[in-house]
């Protein structure tokens, strides 16, 4: 009897898991097959496989104004932003583990406190403007250079590295910076990888700085372009009677296909990167959890 109830539980469990997984994944699968479907066929409904397989949607969106340029801006902010964050946070974290640092505790507290307050949207907006970051690429990468949470994770990790390695390097006459680049940083790879995932996904996904403070067309990120197409295309939908009149033009492509294909392009980098790095951030989270 016990066996039976255990089996029933397994069946129930697997059913729940499979259902929830489908709910999580299907929307992504849907935009994938829709983006490969013929725009006119797709209007009749796409469910499990692409209807009338085509690449026309992809070739169309990369011909749209600014699309490729925005893609490059997003890539640039992700790569540069992540590198900057890692360089600044790891060096800062190493420095605050050193007893030799003047005011070490004060400096660390000065940083950690920032996790618990937030000035709010409007002061943020005004500050960025005053600092000259409006319509400036640095707006994307500079504010996230030193992040308290990352520094805490890194510091916790560096503190549990064996002291002997550092001491022997010091005997050889290496200075702090050399010890950091040659000993500490290479040993910190597990936590650095974790932070690289968080930071890069964060950079790729951030849009509000762009929305509030960048009006320059040359600095638009892919996320905001997607948002603009989503909201603009709603206008296209509402004036769909108009486009019925010139069917000749409209038959090649539909607003929905465009929007879905852009969504796919914006999602794809995240989908490709995160499964491989997942083991790192699970590890990293556990490191962080030890402290808490």
């Amino acid at each position: 009897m016990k066996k039976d109830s255990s089996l029933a539980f397994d069946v129930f469990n697997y059913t729940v898991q499979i259902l929830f997984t489908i709910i999580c994944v299907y929307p992504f699968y849907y935009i994938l097959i829709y983006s490969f479907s013929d725009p006119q066929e797709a209007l009749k409904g796409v469910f499990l496989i692409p209807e009338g397989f085509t690449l026309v949607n992809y070739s169309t969106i990369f011909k749209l104004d600014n699309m490729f340029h925005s893609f490059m801006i997003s890539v640039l902010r992700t790569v540069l932003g992540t590198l900057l964050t890692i360089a600044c946070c790891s060096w800062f974290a190493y420095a605050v583990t050193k007893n030799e640092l003047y005011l070490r505790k004060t400096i660390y507290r000065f940083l950690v406190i920032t996790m618990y307050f937030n000035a709010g949207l409007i002061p943020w907006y005004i500050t960025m403007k005053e600092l000259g970051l409006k319509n400036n690429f640095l707006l994307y990468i500079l504010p996230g250079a030193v992040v308290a949470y990352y520094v805490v994770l890194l510091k916790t990790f560096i503190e549990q590295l064996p002291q002997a390695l550092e001491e022997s390097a010091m005997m050889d006459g290496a200075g702090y910076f050399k010890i950091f680049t040659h000993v500490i940083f290479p040993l910190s790879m597990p936590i650095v990888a974790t932070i690289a995932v968080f930071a890069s996904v964060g950079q790729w996904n951030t849009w509000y700085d762009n929305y509030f403070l960048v009006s320059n067309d040359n600095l638009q990120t892919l996320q905001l372009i997607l948002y603009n197409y989503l909201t603009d295309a709603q206008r296209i939908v509402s004036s769909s009677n108009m486009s019925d009149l010139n069917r000749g033009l409209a038959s090649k492509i539909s607003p929905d296909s465009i929007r879905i294909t852009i969504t796919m392009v914006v999602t794809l980098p995240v989908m490709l990167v995160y499964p491989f790095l997942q083991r790192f951030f699970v590890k990293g989270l556990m490191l962080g959890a030890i402290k808490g």
Partner: protein
Amino acid sequence: MKYKASRITLLLMVIPFILLVFAFNYIPLFGWIYAFYDYKPGIPLSQTEFVGLKFFKWAIEEKEDLLRVLTNTLALSFLSILASPLSVIFAILLNELRSKKFQKLVQTLTTLPNFISWIIVYSLAFFMFSSGGLVNEVLMRLGWIDEPTTVMGNAAATWWFQTAITIWKSLGWGAIIYLAAIAGIDQELYDAAKVDGAGRFQRIMAITVPGIMPTFFVLLLLNVASVLSNGASGFEQNFVFYNSLVADRIEALDYYVYRVGITTGEISFGTAIGIAKSLISILLLFLMNALSKKVRGHSVF
């Protein structure tokens, strides 16, 4: 002498980063003074009238707006706190899967929504739930409905719909933290319980659940402390799903600050509300921390 020189070098090498922290985390606090002036964009602060607490009083007088916005904020927060045990249940179910490969697969696929931006979430939701979206398409074909449903434009359903979206985005990710907590439970406890004849369900209730409780409690306290923000990205969610049909039921505090402060240009009034919000949030955080000390003997931070 050389030692001292190296200490000074070390300090000098940290200063640029201290300045960065100061510039992006502390300087915005000086912006709080705008709440005490009758500031209009374009006119320098020095030529602006000091009005003291006028805008804070104004906020209290505008209580109809504020009440509506607070109700939405608290309702959305309350519903998501109510849903937070789902992550615990999901983690326990995941842990009970016999195939580790399948567990990894489910874990990977269900955390995907956590890593996409709110703009993509909105896009997906639009193609699933709008009047011409997939859900309506399927339901109409099945003959279950005659008219398309419009959940994204339905004020009465807004709180529930937004909570469902929050759950979709964060459930899988939330479970990872609890899985880590479960992994930290001593395996011998399970073996001993088995020897004592405890069934699977008994082992879950007697070992796994108590093992997770401390983690759950800490996260619960942090959630309560941030009720006014609707989580880390409450504003973004609010922003993308906001439309005129659901405005009255979706607009939370952060969105209100944005709408009043930036869209309508009432910088001072918006800042005043923002200040009140920040101060209450910090107060809540300390309260929750004190509660944690009292109940568990540990502080949260």
